[in-house]
Structures are given as C-alpha cells and as structure tokens.
C-alpha cells in the first residue's frame, strides 16, 4: 500500500528521493503519539514520550538501513517537549523534514531539537490563545446555553465546535510543517507573520472575553434604596448607567490582582468567602 503511494507521489512532490509520503505524514498526525500528547504528560519532560512515538514510524523509514542512526534519532526525540497539542503534528512535520537532511549529513543532528525548542514558545502562545481563549470559550458559551435549556445536545455541540478546528490543524499542520521544514523559522520571522497572526488572534480573544464578561456574569447587588414608589435597587441603578457594568468591574479587578502574581487558587478561596459574607448580609446575590 504505502509503496504504491510512494511511487505516485514521488515524481511530482520532490526532485530528490524522499521516503516519506503524504500518507505517512497524515497517519502520524492521528496516531497514538500525536493524539496522546498529554496522556503520558509528566512534570519532568512533559510530552517527550508522545512526541517520540508520533514520529517513530517515519524515523524507522528514514533510517531503514541505519540501525544506529535510528536509535540515536529515537533518543533525540525523547527530549523535553511541550506545546498546545493541536500544533504538535506541525512540529512533527518540521522535525521529519529535518531528519531527512540529518540522515544525509546535511545538518547537525542537534539542530532539530533547537528548532523544536524554538517553535514551542511562539506556537504555544498562539495556540493557547486560539484554542483556550477563543474556540473553547465560544464552544462553552454555545454548549452552556443548550445545557441550561436542558438540551442533551449541549455537550456534543461543545465537543464538535472545540475539536473540528483542532483536527483540521493537525492534519493540515503536519503536511505544512514538512513542506516548510527548517526554513520556516526564518521565513516566519522575516515576514513578521507570526507577530501579525498573534495580534489578530489576540483581538478575537479579547473581544470574546469582553463579550463574555457581560454574558456570563450573574452576580447582582440587590440592596434596596428609597421607599414605596421611589424604591429601587443598586443593581437597577447600575444597569441604568451601563448594562453589564458589574461584570466588567469584576473582570478588571481580577485582571489587576492576577497581574500582582496572586495565585488564582487564592482568588477562588477569597471569592467564596466574599460570596458567603455577601449572602449573609444580603448585599450580594
């Protein structure tokens, strides 16, 4: 099977001899290692085992006549690795295209881990913003609304919205990474593409967060003032000034506290204390 595809693809893909086919790359983007990036996660070397397993089959092909080279390559790819999981196959593609050149002696073996390390930071920054701050929040907003209405499709909608972009990125990323190879870093840095993409993603993330701080904040201040006809609550006055103002205030207070390096776990505990005190005296609901 594999060798058939190889013969078809080879002439049009590269002038040079390449044993790695598109099918190999595709498979690696959905194999046990690629999908299990966080399964064997440890504080020690994080995703190193899964990364090695993701590329192992292709390493075997590249070093099919070189047992020593294969073993060294396996060990190389057991180095510390950590990334937003959906970007892992992209880095795998880059690594494999470099390994082909390492096998030919064109570049130093150590270089591949330098490149992997250089990709981890920026890609995780952009990946966490896309997947955690944007797609996950949108998926959760849709899913929560359905769940609150008692619709069992809520969790399914959440999973679909969150995962379809991720799997697309895995499958596309591994091919793109292989194609770009080591040249990717220079190209991306020169064009300033990474910085632009990061800013564009940030804008989406920020606007979503801004919208969510109105939509998903329910605490109110039910203190009553005035008597009879004139009676109103602080909440009504606040809503009159600007709807959602309390959620926005809470957002920026937390934002400021987090910037002071206060642990989120402490903020959770203090919020619970505030909630209890507020409920007891009736100034929060």
């Amino acid at each position, binding site marked *: 099977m594999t060798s058939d595809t190889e013969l078809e693809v080879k002439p049009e893909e590269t002038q040079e001899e390449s044993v790695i086919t598109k099918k190999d790359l595709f498979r690696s983007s959905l194999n046990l290692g690629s999908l299990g990036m966080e399964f064997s996660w440890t504080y*020690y070397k994080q995703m190193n085992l899964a990364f090695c397993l993701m590329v192992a089959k292709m390493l075997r092909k590249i070093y099919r006549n070189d047992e020593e080279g294969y073993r060294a390559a396996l060990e190389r790819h057991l180095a510390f690795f950590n990334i937003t999981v959906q970007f892992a196959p992209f880095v795998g593609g880059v690594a494999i295209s470099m390994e082909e050149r390492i096998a030919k002696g064109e570049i130093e073996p150590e270089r591949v881990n330098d490149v992997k390390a250089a990709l981890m930071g920026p890609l995780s920054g952009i990946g966490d913003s896309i997947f955690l701050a944007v797609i996950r929040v949108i998926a959760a907003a849709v899913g929560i609304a359905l769940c609150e209405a*008692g619709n069992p499709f809520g*969790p399914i909608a959440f999973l679909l919205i969150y995962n379809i972009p991720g799997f697309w990125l895995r499958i596309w990323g591994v091919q793109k990474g292989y194609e770009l190879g080591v040249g990717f870093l220079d190209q991306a840095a020169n064009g300033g593409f990474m910085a632009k993409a990061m800013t564009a993603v*940030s804008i989406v993330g920020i*606007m979503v967060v801004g919208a969510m701080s109105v939509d998903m904040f329910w605490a109110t201040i039910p203190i009553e003032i005035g008597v009879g006809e004139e009676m109103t609550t602080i909440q009504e006055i606040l809503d009159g000034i600007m709807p959602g103002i309390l959620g926005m205030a809470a957002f920026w207070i937390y*934002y400021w506290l987090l910037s002071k390096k206060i642990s989120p776990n402490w903020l959770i505990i203090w919020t619970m204390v505030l909630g209890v005190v507020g409920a007891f005296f009736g100034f929060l609901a």
Partner: protein
Amino acid sequence: MILQAILVGLVGALGCFDYQLGTLYMFRPIVMCPLVGLVLGDLQTGLAVGASLELLFMGSISIGAYVPPNETIGGVLSCAFAISLHQGTEAAIALAMPIAVLSLALGNLTAPIWPFFVDKADTCAKNGNLKGIYAVHLGIGLYGCLEYFVLCGGAFLLGVEAVQGILDWIPDFVLNGFGVAANILPAMGFAMLGRLVITKKLVPFYFLGFVICAYMGVPVLGVAIIAIIIGIEKFDLLGGAVDAPSTSLALEGDDDDDF
C-alpha cells in the same frame, strides 16, 4: 450502589483517557456531568450542573506554570453527590471546588516517581526498543485512568453519607454564598484568559466586544465573527488588498458614467 460507583468511576476514567484521544476536552464538567447524570438516571440535573460547573471552572486551565484544580474529578464527584442526595446545583457548586483542589493535591503525590520511568524510555531508545517506549507512555497514562477510576468510584461509594452530613451541617447562607461566588468566578476565568491575550495597545478591543454584547445583545459567537473580520482587515491576512479595491472602484466608476 456498587454498580453506580463503578459507573461513576468509569466516567472519571473516561475523562482521563480523553488525553489519549486527542485532548478532546471531554474531561470538562460540561461533558462529564451530563454523563454522570446519564449513568445515575438523572440527565437533566447532570446538564444543569455541567453548565454551572463549566463556568465555575472557566479559568481552570493550565497556562504557563499554573496547575489548576482538577475540574474533572471535582465535576464528576460533586455532580454524582448532588444527584444521589437529591440536591440541586447549589450543592454541586459548593462541593466542586474543594474536591477539585483536594484531587489536585492527591494527583501530585505520584509525580516524583515518573522521572524514573521517563528515563527508562531513553534506555529503550538506545536499544532500539520502540515497544518499550510505548509501554512507558501507556503505563503512565493508564495509571492516571486507574487513579481517576478509584478516586471517583471510591469516593462516591464511601463518601455519600459523609457528604450528606456535611451538607446538613453547613448553614443555608453558606450554600447560597457559594452560589454567589459561582456567579462571580467566571469573571476570574475571563481575566485569566485576558492575561493571555491583552496588551496595552489592544485594550480598546475589550471594550468593543463588551459594548457590542451589552448594548446590542449580540451573542458571543457573533462577537467572535465580527472580531475575526476586524483581524483579517487590519492585517490584510487574505492578501490582495491592492487588487480588490481598485477593481471595485473601477466598476463603480463605470456605473457612474452610465448615469
């Protein structure tokens, strides 16, 4: 009861096995709680608890060095207790965060032994023993699943009475207070995400998103689509900005001539 405990344990284990399936985020309360509801025969409560806890744990994501409370075990157990004790969402909310913090601490107990096995994988690589590396990967992961199974199933089996006692003992205003806190805490989650993406230059976009939602009532998905369009326009990410406008301008010009 034992059957129920096993089922609850299995839901927890599935939450951990999710990390082998591509980190699908099945381990989040919004998926875990409805599943717990399903196995305990009360899907509606499961859905309601799932929605509330998903928001409560909005900021419970590992960014940088922060290891968050374990929302999976917190979600599974608090939902299971709420359903089997015929309590509402408030009880689940009150229980979820303490359980999640406790599970985080328990999970860290085994952390010191893993480097030994991870180094074993290096030896396997030196010997060309790929199967050995698979074994280490699956061993570490499946141990995690077993841990989730035992914690969720075991705590559910042994804890129901104790939890009932705790809930009876806690005064009502404390439970209400936890409910209030759960209404506030999503803001912390968003602030954590904000720390990830906000830079001084981009602060106005926070208010743009806020205003579109607060005054125009556009749902979050709509705000995201507007934001994507702004991002594409601002950086000309689709390219061809030079060609496109000039063509359309030319066409408009033609139209004007006809009049």
